[in-house]
Every structure is written in structure tokens, then in C-alpha cells.
């Protein structure tokens, strides 16, 4: 079995007294596009900074590309491509200058590949970085993360601050450049709709712990919203895996994970209601159910 590209075990981290990560465990399969989801402040960027050796964890261990992210910091940074959240670069440098400058820190920098990327990403070589648009800035940051042809690329909320068109453009470039080359992409975001079409796997980080990690398709298939109608009470405690229960006019919507025939029958039995519909959810709705779902308070039909 292949070693995972990224392996995180029992990761804990605090900023002073504020505990940000409370035991994160995660495995990112090699060659996958992995969506790392979580609301703002959930600890995504902190996890990424620990992976790159920019922060030291209070407890736990991370391995990235087979390297210990705390002991082999320089080797990790040389072998991984990293694009920071809202990456600020040296505004006074010209695009060509910053590319050459960053390249001088990486022994494996592929200048020919970078020149192709400059054309592909439509970057103006002579423009100053401070004069680039947000979209161009993101594309330049992506280019700088890829110039040494890394096998693992970490993108920390790369489309933050971009308008919808620029976001779509950026994702098109990411997929085009990375998906076909067997590169592992670890992609953090809080914008679910941008992760959904590209990610093979997703993990949801909330309040410093991973509350769900699964293949994107499996997650979409396993989490359903069912609509119930009848005169009974919903007693979700009787059925495991209920994420959210909400009243919708004359019916009750129950969002449930690992949904199957057994759970269907159990819900009908315990609630004495009839299931009138089963609805597939998109990743946005699934994320919402996991993060802000009420876990099934008793609801009167």
C-alpha cells in the first residue's frame, strides 16, 4: 500500500491559552486532490503552517512526502509547493524578477517549465507585482509554488478575495496543471462550491478537530436529507448519525449520514411518520449539516 502523501496524527496547537487544534488526525492519499474544509478560524491555516514547519505543534506529528515536518523543515519546504492564504509578495519586484529570485532558493527549479507557465497563466513578465490584479497575483503565487515541480502542493484558501470569474479561471488552471501530473493537491477553503467539482477527498475541520473525512462521492452518496410527514414526534436519539433536523412547512427535514435501508426503517418506526422524499445534498449543504447542524433536537411534526 502506498504511503500517504500527508499523514497527521494527534496534532494539537494553542495560541497562548486558546487551543486551536485539539487532536487532528488526517491522511491524504498520494495523487489525490484533497479538499480541507472548515469555517473561518477552525484551524486550517494553522494546520498548514505546522505541516510546513512554520509553527511547532504542542503535540502530535506530521509527515509530508515521507518527511517529518518538524525535523526536516528545509527538505519539506524544498519539496513541497506552497501558496499562502492571500499571499502578499514583494510589490516592488517585477514578475520576471520575483520568478528568478524565488527560483534561486530551489535546487530543482525548472526555468523552462516556468516560462511555459508564464505564457499559460498569461502573466506579464515586465509588470510590477504591486500592479497585478488579484487574479494575476493568485496565478503568480501558484506559478511560484509549482516552479520546482513539487509532488505535493498545498494551497491555503487560494481563491480568497477573487471574484467568481477569477475563481473559476484559477481553478481551471489548478486542475489543468496538476490533476493530470499525479501531483497531490491539499486545498484548503471555506467555499464549498469551489471544492466540490475538483476534490477527490474532503475533510471537514471544525473547532480544532476533524469531524468528517471521506471520498467526496461517497460523502455525497452517504449523506441524505429525508422529508417526513405524519403526526408523530421525531426522536432522533433512536437513530444514529442524525446531523440536522429542521421544520419545513408541513414536513420535517432530517439530514442523516451513512443513510441506508436500515436507517430508513428505523426512522419511520421511531417517528411514526412516513418518508415522503429523499434528497441528495451538495457539499455545501453537507458541510452545513456537519458544522452547524443541531444533531437532532426533538421536533414536533
Amino acid at each position, binding site marked *: 500500500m502506498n504511503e500517504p502523501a500527508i499523514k497527521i496524527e494527534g496534532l494539537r496547537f494553542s495560541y497562548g491559552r*486558546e487551543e486551536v487544534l485539539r487532536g487532528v488526525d488526517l491522511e491524504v492519499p498520494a495523487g489525490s486532490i484533497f479538499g480541507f474544509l472548515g469555517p473561518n478560524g477552525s484551524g486550517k491555516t494553522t494546520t498548514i503552517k505546522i505541516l*510546513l514547519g*512554520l*509553527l511547532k505543534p504542542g503535540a502530535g506529528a506530521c509527515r509530508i512526502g515521507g518527511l517529518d515536518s518538524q525535523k526536516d523543515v528545509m527538505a519539506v519546504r524544498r519539496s513541497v509547493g506552497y501558496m499562502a492564504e492571500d499571499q*502578499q*509578495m514583494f*510589490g516592488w*519586484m517585477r514578475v520576471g524578477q520575483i520568478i528568478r529570485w524565488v527560483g*534561486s*532558493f530551489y535546487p530543482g527549479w525548472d526555468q523552462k517549465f516556468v516560462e511555459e507557465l508564464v505564457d499559460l497563466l498569461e502573466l506579464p513578465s515586465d509588470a510590477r507585482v504591486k500592479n497585478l490584479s488579484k487574479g494575476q497575483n493568485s496565478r503568480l503565487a501558484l506559478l511560484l509554488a509549482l516552479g520546482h515541480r513539487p509532488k505535493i502542493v498545498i494551497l491555503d484558501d487560494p481563491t480568497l478575495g477573487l471574484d467568481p470569474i477569477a475563481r473559476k479561471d484559477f481553478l481551471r488552471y489548478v486542475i489543468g496543471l496538476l490533476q493530470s501530473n499525479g501531483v497531490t493537491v491539499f486545498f484548503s477553503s471555506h467555499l464549498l462550491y469551489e471544492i466540490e467539482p475538483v476534490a477527490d477527498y474532503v475533510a471537514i475541520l471544525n473547532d480544532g478537530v476533524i469531524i468528517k473525512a471521506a471520498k467526496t462521492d461517497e460523502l455525497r452518496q452517504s449523506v441524505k436529507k429525508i422529508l417526513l410527514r405524519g403526526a408523530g414526534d421525531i426522536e432522533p436519539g433512536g437513530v444514529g448519525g442524525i446531523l440536522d433536523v429542521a421544520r419545513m412547512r408541513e414536513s420535517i427535514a432530517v439530514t442523516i449520514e451513512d443513510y441506508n435501508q436500515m436507517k430508513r426503517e428505523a426512522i419511520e418506526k421511531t417517528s411514526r411518520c412516513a418518508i415522503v422524499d429523499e434528497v441528495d445534498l451538495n457539499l455545501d449543504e453537507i458541510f452545513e449539516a456537519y458544522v452547524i447542524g443541531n444533531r437532532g433536537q426533538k421536533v414536533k411534526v
Partner: protein
Amino acid sequence: MIKALFWKEWCEHRWKLAYGCVLLMGFVAVGLRSRIVQDAVIVVFAAVGGSVLMPLLVGMGLVAAERSDGSLEMLLALPVRSWKIFAVKMAMGTLVCVGPIVGCMVLSLAMAAGREMSASRIIVPYLGGVAFSIVMLVWMVAFSIRQPSEARAGLVGIAVFMVWFFMIILDESAWLLDGSSLVITPFGIFDCTLDRNYDILPKVISVQLVIGFCLMMWAAYRFGKLGRTKE
């Protein structure tokens, strides 16, 4: 790698070097040419003024400017040890601080050596200025390294200078100290070079070297930990 770091720092700070040279050397050139006051006054003003102005100007931009515009995160994420980045920053900062003072010294020697002052009398205040500016830069960077903006780093630099100044005043008033302020603060350097009080020079040099070394170690450690602060 180190060359690339130097190139970046040079590009960022060369304008300050040019500004310092034009300002201080212009003052020296006009002052020595016009002869409105004694040459010694011009030399001392240039040496003392340059040694306070340049570290403030440079210290504000060395780390705090990069923090405020957000590029420090990119710099620290490169595959380079943070102490190397810090060492290059300090080396370039020192060069920019010292450059205009050395320029003034050369200009003063060219214009006024042997006129009212001997060459050695001209050189000594400037050497004091060079030493004072390096010490002030070290103190300022050490205490302002976590400041999020240039303005706040500048305020820290001014505060450091004022604390030294108050220590000297207290010492002169004989309230608390017993002359040790001249050794602890870099004002002892000017006491040696301007008042020619060479007796305390070895003590001043050794104490300032020890303090400077400790402050640099502390600053380098904190520079590497800048990512720890929650943005």
C-alpha cells in the same frame, strides 16, 4: 541563496542609503564650505545626527515594514533558515546605517583636514558615530521586531533612545547610578570619542559587545518565531 537575500535587501534599502548620503553629506559639504561655524561643530553634528537618524530610518523598515505589507510570511516560508534571513537583514541594515557616516568622514577629510582640525580629530567622532549607529540599530531591531508597522517600530526606537537619555540624566543627578550608564548605554561611545575620555573605552566596548550579542541572539530567536503570532 544568500546572494539572493542580499540582492533583495539591497533593492529595498538602497534608497535609504542614498537619502542618508544626500542629507548628511549635503549638510557637511555646505557647512564646511560656508564656514559659518567651526569645522568641529559640523563634524560633530554630522556624526551624532547621522548615528541617531540612520538607525531609526533603517530599523523601521528592516522587519516591521515587511510585517505590515505581509511579505514576511512569504520570506519565512522559503527553504532558508530564518537566522540566515535575519543575519542578512542586519548586515544590510548596518551597511546602510554606516555608509552615510563614512561618506561624511571621507568628505570632511577631503574638504577640511588640516584646516582647523587634524585628520585624526576628524576621523574619531565619525568612528564614534559609526559605533553608536550600529549599537542603536541592534537595540532598536531587538525591541521592535514584533511591531506590526513601521510607525510603531520607529516609536520603539525613539523610546529606546529616550530611556538611554533618562539614564544619563539620572546618573548625572547622582540619584540612582554611579557612572555605569555611560557603559550600559552607547552614550559612553560619544563620551570616549567626543570628550576623549579614553579611560572607559575598553569597558564600553566590552559591555556593548556583550549586550549587542545577547540582543542579537534574542532578536534572531524571536524573528524565527514571528509565525507564532495569530494574524
